[in-house]
């Protein structure tokens, strides 16, 4: 794709800032990497006997835990693609939980979902007014919205929930379940296959099984939103305009695009997605609103989005990683994470070999040493402390980012103030 000089472009300088090499991984390569990782996990599972790390329920729990993070991340993606940094996702999630539950317990779960989205949209709208119209620093506005959403929901919760059956100052009354489904034959078949414990095949079965077992309708919608987002943003005129506002709003303006409009829309949609994430928490994950329910998922969603290089697919992987490690942790953390140590050691070994092939011998040796240490830790213990388990997702994220951050690329005008009529 990148051969800048051709015979016809005589005057084209060949020294233009070369596009960062390997920035875009092609699909086959990506698939290969994912398959390789799965194979490693499979090996680890077989060696350690920690079947928990890839079984169906593990995956289905992971999916459920990943949904709110993924939705928050999607919200972040929409906003940042239009050039607005949204650190107020946490607040918008909180609004989603409250509004979702408030409407949900009175008028049914689907209304709750809808109103939860609207609640998030309100947060988004506020963020848009402050950052787009008043051009306030985006992080500042986001921090303020987080504070405000927390205060507002706490203030409103007693007014709305106290006195209703099962409601209190901190908890809403219960909401009817939204319903979920299991693909009848497939789920069981995959479960059986998974239980066989075969190399690789069973692990894939576990992964797929998680996607068809006990899935809430809202989860399905959330998963569908990932490709939908990609399609809208990258395959429609609307998406092109929206992205152009994040890359170069002045250029967009010069072509007659109403930048304010698209920024507003993007941030409101961003809030709506976060609101949906909140509603998921207070309707599906738990059947009620609870104070403190969101506990930092907005920030994690943001991290997942950066992890995913501002792309829906990457974001899904990021959210999945958080969901997966979280579920590992909840479902008998110590042994599972102990098994992951072996995986880490193996990965480091692979890394060391790769570095050696690339003739970076010093790096290779260091990597190998670290790998050996991790292996020693694995071999010398039967369990890891709970604290290590709890920290695992964050450590993994840091490590992965450290390995890949230089390839990340955010929208060029992300976070910059824009004013109409400024184009030079």
């Amino acid at each position, binding site marked *: 794709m990148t051969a800048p000089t051709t015979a016809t472009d005589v005057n084209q300088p060949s020294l233009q800032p070369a596009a960062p090499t390997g920035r875009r991984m092609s699909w086959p390569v990506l698939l290969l990497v994912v398959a390789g990782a799965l194979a490693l996990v499979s090996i680890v599972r077989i060696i350690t006997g920690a079947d928990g790390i890839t079984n169906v329920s593990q995956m289905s729990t992971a999916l459920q835990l990943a949904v709110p993070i993924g939705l928050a991340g999607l919200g972040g993606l929409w906003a940042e693609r239009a050039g607005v940094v949204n650190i107020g996702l946490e607040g918008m999630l909180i609004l989603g939980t409250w509004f979702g539950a408030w409407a949900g317990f009175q008028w049914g779960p689907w209304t709750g979902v809808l109103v939860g989205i609207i609640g998030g949209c309100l947060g988004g709208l*506020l963020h848009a007014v402050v950052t787009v119209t008043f051009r306030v620093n985006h992080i500042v506005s986001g*921090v303020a919205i987080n504070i405000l959403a927390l205060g507002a929901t*706490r203030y409103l919760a007693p007014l709305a929930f106290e006195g209703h059956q099962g409601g209190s100052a901190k908890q809403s009354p219960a909401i009817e379940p939204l319903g979920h489904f299991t693909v009848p034959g497939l789920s069981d078949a995959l479960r059986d296959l998974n239980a066989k414990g075969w190399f690789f095949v069973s692990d894939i079965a576990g992964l797929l099984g998680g996607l068809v077992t006990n899935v809430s309708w809202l989860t399905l919608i959330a998963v569908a939103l990932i490709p939908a987002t990609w399609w809208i943003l990258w395959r429609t005129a609307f998406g092109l305009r929206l992205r152009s506002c994040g890359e170069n709003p002045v250029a967009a303006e010069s072509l007659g695009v109403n930048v304010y409009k698209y920024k507003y829309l993007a941030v409101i949609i961003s809030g709506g997605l976060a609101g949906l994430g909140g509603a998921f928490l207070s309707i599906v994950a738990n059947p009620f609103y609870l104070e403190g329910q969101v506990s930092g998922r907005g920030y994690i969603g*943001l991290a997942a989005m950066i992890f995913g290089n501002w792309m829906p697919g990457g974001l899904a992987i990021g959210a999945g990683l958080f969901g997966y490690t979280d579920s590992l942790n909840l479902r008998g953390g110590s042994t599972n994470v102990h098994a992951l140590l072996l995986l880490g050691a193996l990965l480091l070994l692979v890394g060391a070999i790769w570095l050696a092939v690339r003739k970076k011998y010093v790096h290779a040796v260091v990597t190998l040493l670290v790998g050996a240490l991790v292996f020693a830790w694995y071999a010398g213990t039967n369990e890891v402390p709970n604290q290590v388990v709890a*920290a695992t997702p964050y450590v993994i994220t840091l490590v992965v*980012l450290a390995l890949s951050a*230089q390839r990340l690329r955010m929208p060029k005008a992300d976070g910059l103030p824009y004013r109409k009529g*400024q184009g030079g």
Partner: protein
Amino acid sequence: MKKFDKERALLAVAGPVIALAVAFALSAIVLLASGKNPVEPFALMFEQATFSDVQVLIVNQASMYYIAALAVAIGFRMNLFNIGVDGQYQLGAIMAAVVGAHMNLPAVLQIPLLLLTAVFTGAFWAGIAGVLKVTRGVSEVVATIMLNAIATSLIVYMWKPDVFGVKIGNNSTTGEMHESGWVPGIDMGEAGEIYGLVVLAALLGIGYWIVLNRTRFGFDLRASGASTTAAAASGVDPKRMVLTAMLISGGLAGLAGLPILLGDSHTYNLNFPTGIGFLGIGIALLGRNSPVGIAFAALLWAWLDKASPELDFYGYDKEIAVIMQGLIVLSVVVSYEAVREWGLRRQQRRVGAELAAGHVLGADNNSPKEVAGR
């Protein structure tokens, strides 16, 4: 900026004042909407501020907010978002508590030792994010969010009985610190005691100002914040500056928990206040990263914190104070932005007038894009 400019000074004050008024008005509307008296809560809260014991509480709390906000602000000054102050101050405090419980030197050595422990711990933790940023290009926002979470695990680990933990009743603690490490407070009689380290907070504020405005290093740091590229061309090593700023920010952050640790609790336990780092972000923003502004912001915030519990006794929800905190930040930043733009426009008008007065060759082309950008 040297010459006193009345109009400008007026506006600098008017901005926050108007913003506060707006925030109060909006909160009053919230109260009205929920069928409550919109004025009484404020009257009650103002009354609280006149009590000396509440004042002591406010000052004590503000000292911690102040240090945390300074830590955030120094990052902001060079466009670094140290969201990790929260983890840094908690780790700093627990390390100081552990050292304080296991070492027993004379006070003149012990207290500096504890301060240094906290500084180095905070700096170390922030330094990880700094190193990741300069060597691997990891966004410090994400890195510090992750490090906050990891710090939590680390703290819980240190609380384990076979590590540094000492169980007192149902509380996890790090054991009582030796008295040589206690910093005596300022006795206010009936009203209580002001933490001794409030003085440290004030000194840090002064130091912050001096370093930033009166030293070569401070200039380099501000230049990096204003324009990384221009700073690099001026001879600042951007990577080193990022790392240094991160270390300083973390070092400061490490101190944020010490006023209460050395002044009151003398151990790091489950009650140790959390979340100060996040509040520090809001406070730094409110105070516009200036040491005096932050001081006012910290006091304002602490006042809302300390005066609001009283509302409970009168049938109001004290959450209104949290709503107000959010509204204040929002309206203040909006008004700051408005004032800033007004000032810029005013200046350009002056430049324009100057150009008009000059002749022929003064006028020049423009590229407003750059003017508007950072």
